[in-house]
């Protein structure tokens, strides 16, 4: 019975770590009190009650629900991103899937240790969920697009289109194993991609942690500006940037105000967000903050604005392209009213597949532009 009691105590102490900080004292209280209960069944029953307190107070349903949702989403994303036998760069792709999942699980735990618990604001939590969802969505979309864009077609007519899309002037120089996806991501390309994932996750985890002292208003302003910019960018470039502006959503449009708006938001959005966040930032009780703190709030808002936009448009753009490659209906819907021959459809698909590189460019440079423009705006 003693052994059972000790095992129950150890298990419950471990489970108590699931509790919010303010509730752990209560579990410790039940445990301390167990020493007053007569040994044997009565003490075991007391401890079982303690386990029940943990189950209730840990908000188990909510926490477990969130963990289960994440596990299901991560499992589905990993399953969709896992390379097919025809993929020649399978080892790199498998590493990418595993490393991304490890980062999504491990970085929040590290962030909790070094930056403290997440900010209690709804904007902060939503931003974390959005970042995690976007990275998860990018994983299979990137894998599908890369596998297709590097798949050497067996038919000669398709091979010509493939080689042109790959940047060759003819099929002679364009060598690849027919029917296999070769020349995809390599280790040298994988490392920067993972570093970028770490940077995005790390910055968002830091900005949404309590220790960063970024205010709710700053998070809301940065995220709101970013989502607006991201939506405009997605409408402008749903399948990379090579298509005409707003095509295929608004075919036939030549003079495009959305393109102008995208340029304005790219440079003006973070600057405006920085000015607004710096002006609105207040300390506890509405106290005025020192200038350098307000500048910090402004820069955080600007980086968030362009970082959020880049994540948003990349996840949606890669996602749309991957869906189009997998679903014929989307391809025909995007080209409604046109008679697409098989080769024309392939050209369209391979063009879109290679054009998605622009999203990686956005993921790298948008936050940098955001940082520069917000520093100017906040100063």
């Amino acid at each position, binding site marked *: 019975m003693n052994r059972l009691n000790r095992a129950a105590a150890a298990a419950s102490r471990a489970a108590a770590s699931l509790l919010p900080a303010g509730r752990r004292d209560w579990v410790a*209280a*039940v445990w301390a009190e167990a020493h007053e209960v007569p040994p044997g069944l009565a003490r075991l029953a*007391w401890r079982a009650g303690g386990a029940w307190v943990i189950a209730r107070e840990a908000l188990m349903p909510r926490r477990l629900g969130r963990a289960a949702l994440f596990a299901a989403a991560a499992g589905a994303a990993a399953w969709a991103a896992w390379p097919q036998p025809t993929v020649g760069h399978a080892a790199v792709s498998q590493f990418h899937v595993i490393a991304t999942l490890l980062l999504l699980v491990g970085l929040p735990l590290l962030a909790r240790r070094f930056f403290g618990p997440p900010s209690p604001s709804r904007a902060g939590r939503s931003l974390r969920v959005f970042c995690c969802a976007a990275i998860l969505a990018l994983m299979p979309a990137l894998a599908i697009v890369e596998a297709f864009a590097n798949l050497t077609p067996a038919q000669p007519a398709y091979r010509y289109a493939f080689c042109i899309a790959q940047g060759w002037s003819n099929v002679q120089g364009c060598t690849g194993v027919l029917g296999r996806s070769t020349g995809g991501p390599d280790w040298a390309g994988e490392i920067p991609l993972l570093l970028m994932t770490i940077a995005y996750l790390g910055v968002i985890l830091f900005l949404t942690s309590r220790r960063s002292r970024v205010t709710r208003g700053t998070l809301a302003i940065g995220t709101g500006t970013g989502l607006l910019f991201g939506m405009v960018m997605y409408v402008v470039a749903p399948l990379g940037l090579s298509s005409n502006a707003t095509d295929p959503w608004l075919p036939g449009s030549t003079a495009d105000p959305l393109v102008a708006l995208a340029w304005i938001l790219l440079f003006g959005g973070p600057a405006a967000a920085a000015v607004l966040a710096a002006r609105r930032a207040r300390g506890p009780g509405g106290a005025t903050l020192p200038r350098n703190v307000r500048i910090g709030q402004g820069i955080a808002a600007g980086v968030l604005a362009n970082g959020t936009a880049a994540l948003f448009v990349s996840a949606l753009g890669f996602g749309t392209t991957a869906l189009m490659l997998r679903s014929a209906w989307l391809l025909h819907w995007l080209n409604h009213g046109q008679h697409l021959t098989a080769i024309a459809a392939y050209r369209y698909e391979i063009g879109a597949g290679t054009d998605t590189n622009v999203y990686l460019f956005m993921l790298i440079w948008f936050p940098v532009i955001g940082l520069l423009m917000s520093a100017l705006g906040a100063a």
Partner: protein
Amino acid sequence: MRSSPGFSAQTLSVLAALCDEPSQWQHGYALAKQTGLKSGTLYPILIRLADRGLVEACWQDEPEPGRPRRHLYRLTAAGLASATQALASAARPAATKAARTPVVRGAVARVAP
């Protein structure tokens, strides 16, 4: 199963136990013995009461040798007022059936003469 505005029969019994000596700090096990509640019922009640500012909790300053420090509880001023009012309304003849359960009857008998 509400027996008094905002309080269940079990909560009323905890309030009544704490009302016995409102100025004294009490232990969880003593409260459990007084009310007949299991730890899995008692502590969630204490947590809710503390969240509502009706109960205050602290850790024992000097633990007994060889024993861990114990958590202590007592009613706040607001808690005492709420408890007295809730127990008085539970003692009325028009109180709900739940308020006439043995646990609450005992609690009411202790508090309302």
